[in-house]
């Protein structure tokens, strides 16, 4: 299952999304993919060192499931690597270093458009192509509550079950796990490593107070 739109439809308002940015790096099949593994590895090294709170690649898994070494060792020409940040500063510095490295790989940022545009401007870059989310159509009554969706949609392949969120929320309430542990458990489920465990922890804490 290739990533197509897996970071596009993250839910939440502007305030809620202000600590959620994802970088994706990949080669284009049949054009610049041959010998791209080393470039992708270099890109992930750069992306990870700017305080990334999660990273991974779809085929190998993420930081929380398989650990850093397996992620890096498993990078191939066809890999799609990701890193997650909780603030604009880390995102901007990561992008600036990726620009400097000039690896020739495609880089896509997911996050608030205004913040991402501002970041690009400060480092002398311009958006090339943009993708908008027009939201969810159809039978809305089949969906879990919005506050649960804010958590589960951080895994675009929907490998994070709303029932698991509810279970962990109950576990946190009973003192069986900390909110941080619950955030990391949820992050394990998202193979690609695009789930933001820090935001999930914050959202779980907010749910606790309701």
């Amino acid at each position: 299952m290739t990533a197509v739109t897996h970071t596009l439809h993250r839910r939440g308002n502007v305030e809620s999304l202000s600590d959620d940015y994802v970088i994706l790096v990949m080669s284009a099949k049949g054009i610049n993919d041959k010998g791209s593994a080393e470039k992708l590895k270099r890109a992930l090294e750069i992306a990870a060192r700017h305080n990334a709170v999660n990273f991974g690649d779809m085929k190998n898994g993420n930081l929380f499931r398989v650990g850093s070494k397996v992620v890096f060792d498993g990078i191939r020409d066809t890999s799609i690597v990701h890193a997650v940040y909780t603030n604009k500063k880390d995102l901007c510095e990561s992008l600036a270093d990726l620009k400097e490295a000039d690896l020739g790989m495609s880089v896509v940022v997911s996050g608030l458009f205004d913040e991402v545009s501002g970041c690009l401007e400060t480092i002398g870059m311009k958006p090339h192509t943009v993708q908008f989310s027009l939201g969810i159509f159809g039978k809305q009554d089949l969906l879990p509550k919005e506050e649960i969706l804010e958590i589960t949609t951080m895994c675009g392949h929907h490998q994070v079950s709303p029932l698991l969120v509810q279970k962990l929320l109950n576990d946190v309430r009973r003192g069986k796990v900390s909110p941080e542990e619950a955030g990391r458990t949820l992050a394990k489920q998202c193979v690609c490593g695009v789930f933001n465990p820090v935001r999930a922890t914050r959202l779980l804490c907010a749910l606790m107070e309701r």
Partner: protein
Amino acid sequence: MDKCTECYACFRSSICPTDAIKESALVWPRSLRPFFGSVQIEHKETRVPGRGTEEMKTNDVTGRFGYDKIGFSVDIGRPGVGTTFDDVEKIAMAVAKTGAEFEPMNPVTFFMADKKTGRIRDDVKTEKIHSCVLEFTIRLDRLPKAVNALAEVSKEVDTVFSVGCCCKVSPDGTILGKRILEENSIFHRPNGKTNVGLGKPHAEIR
């Protein structure tokens, strides 16, 4: 079992303490489910790798989306509801009438009996899947028509779908697709995806 989409999240989570959840051998057409459900599986029978394509993510290198077209990605069954190809067909046929051109390398297109009308092959129609991506391009000026068609058909399906649309940013920074969305009061979220143009060799965009 009918409702299981073979996403294998249960295996990956190691949730069962006695290891009682077992993977069973799948036969056609159920064997297509993991292809659309499990993140890490590619399906042998379709020979088309993945749930979708590179789409806008490599547009700086491929030049697939120029200034005069909008690329749509309709994630049917997402988030977390699942769908059948019956509903996929309804949506595909609705957008086909507005001039949609389906992406030939996309696995949903692979399962179309008629790639002009969006009609799906009979042998897969009742299969329940986790989600799939219907990808198509449409002329820029037809963007509102396509969105209207999606809004109309959304009343006829027994699922949800998440809609995305992408376009090339003009050299002066204008985003024509965004302008059309706003002129037609079409809702779009404050967050989305931005290809920052670092890929090489640069594609010539027309």
